[in-house]
């Protein structure tokens, strides 16, 4: 597994280095809103739902043949569940952060449609803080995944500008995952070693243990100075089975002012 992961990293690096053509460089500043759903069997069998403030930035460079993208995404909000026959509303704080790198290379093109394929390295961290649960309040997942990416881009004319509509999908292949231990509680008798407990339950994940689908639809409208206005919708779903299963989904709508260097 580790050798395959290393091979994957090397392949992406080689592709990135080989794309030595002149490129345009951009930094997006994205703000928006996201809607989250989760069932985390570590803390509750109940379905939690809620919304979060979304912020994202990063860097991407592109030319006619390739796109290299890094991203930093943050989501902060609350999720809650309404237990059906008790009138209880249980609430949890939600935090989601992701740092990633992706590379896409043109594989096929026509006059208006271009197809890309490549890989990515994604590092999402998800946190749910359910203060009602005392010692088990902190529930989290961290994954470091190497995966395959694909995208299709269609250009069309709007308001005398060439607008790009891009659909991208990412699927992890090799992943390393972190979750709370089976009990969901730290050894509070050994508080000097709490950080060890946090990282205790981590492992390489075989295919099938961690499933993730990440799709993004992005519309890019160029301004006269080369900057972009972008409107994006992202759907993300993941399922992690070891220890206690967690299934979570996110819908995110962001608006971006993207600056060209």
């Amino acid at each position, binding site marked *: 597994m580790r050798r395959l992961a290393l091979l994957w990293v090397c392949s992406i690096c080689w592709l990135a280095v080989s794309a030595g053509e002149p490129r345009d460089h951009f930094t997006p500043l994205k703000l928006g809103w996201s809607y989250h759903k989760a069932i985390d069997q570590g*803390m509750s069998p109940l379905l939690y739902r809620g919304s979060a403030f979304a912020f994202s930035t990063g860097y991407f460079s592109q030319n006619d043949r390739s796109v290299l993208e890094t991203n930093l995404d943050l989501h902060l909000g609350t999720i809650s569940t309404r237990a059906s026959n008790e009138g209880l509303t249980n609430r949890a704080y939600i935090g989601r952060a992701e740092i990633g790198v992706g590379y896409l290379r043109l594989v096929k093109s026509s006059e208006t449609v271009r197809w890309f394929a490549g890989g990515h390295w994604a590092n999402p961290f998800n946190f749910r803080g359910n203060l009602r*649960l005392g010692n088990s309040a902190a529930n989290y997942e961290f994954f470091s995944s190497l995966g395959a990416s694909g995208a299709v881009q269609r250009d069309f004319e709007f308001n005398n500008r060439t607008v790009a509509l891009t*659909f991208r*999908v990412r699927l992890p292949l090799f992943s390393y995952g972190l979750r709370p231990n*089976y*009990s969901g509680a730290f050894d*509070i008798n050994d*508080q000097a070693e709490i950080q060890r407990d946090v990282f205790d339950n981590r492992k390489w994940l075989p295919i099938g243990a961690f499933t993730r689908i990440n*799709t993004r639809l992005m519309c890019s409208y160029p301004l006269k100075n080369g900057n972009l206005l972008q409107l994006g*919708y992202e759907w993300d779903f993941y399922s992690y089975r070891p220890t206690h299963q967690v299934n979570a989904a996110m819908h995110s709508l962001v608006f971006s002012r993207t600056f060209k260097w």
Partner: protein
Amino acid sequence: MVKRWYILLVLPLLASCERAFIGPQPDAEAEATFDALWTVVDERYAFFEYKGVNWDEVRSRYESSINSETGTVDLFYTCADMLNELEDGHVNLWSPFDYSRYDGFYRNSPQNFSYTVIDRNYLQGNQLLTGPLQHYLIDSVGYVYYPSMSSTLGASSIDFVLGLYQQYKGVIIDVRDNGGGNPENGFRLAQRFMQERTHIMDVVMKTGPGAEDFSAPDPVFLEPAGTFFDKPIVVLTNRSCFSATNDFASVCKVLPNVTLMGDTTGGGGGIPAEYELPNGWVVRLSVSQTLLPDGFNVEGGVPPDIQVDMDATEEANGIDSILEAALGEIVGE
């Protein structure tokens, strides 16, 4: 090609299928809630073997009273009775109208403490209040009363109090009726009673749903801090010393220069963790075991080095028999 591209635009509709991926809201009816509670305890509770509880047999006795007609209140008290079969003060069930608890660990034992006796006849309002500590000099011995481990005990408070009594014959730390809180407070106090890094306990965590799924014993060490208190130390305990206070007594049991006096502590050696049930209630239960370095499981309490009970006649006359015994132990009478 163009047609195929439009087909890909349909892919975001995958999102509409996510309900199938994530799963539905679980059934919150009485039978489902009872089953979820029993299962959570079955898979995560750490003391079945230690307490000799046959959880399957317990279920068979209670599940017959649960059916689709069972009301919320009846469900709660049936579940509470089932949980109390574990006889664990760390096991609770929270609902909007009540929370269940087990207090048999002290209720069936002598109280062995009266704050009124201490306040009226020993402190008499002269005590100093340093952080959460009440303390006063009694017969050339420092008497320090710490009522709750939930009250943060800072290093400066400890150092001030112990520094004050360093010049006298010894100190009595009274943690009777201290029902617990944050174990760090007791550990911070015990750090002044040791001169070297000390193996104080081993913790065994539940690591899976099986009855045998436990981690290997994880040794916990405590480093000395502050100024070492080099005079005799007596710690007073009773059956109401629970959870974090039980941990403090466990550490004191390991330290050769500390004498435990009074009654066996109330126990509560497991780390409590909480989980939600399908109807939104929360269950708390012990998910670990705490062992002394010699392997003794402190779930049932830490026995004192010197067993002393309050004498009812003396108590009626304003005398705390355990405190008097501790004074005698230090002063040598």
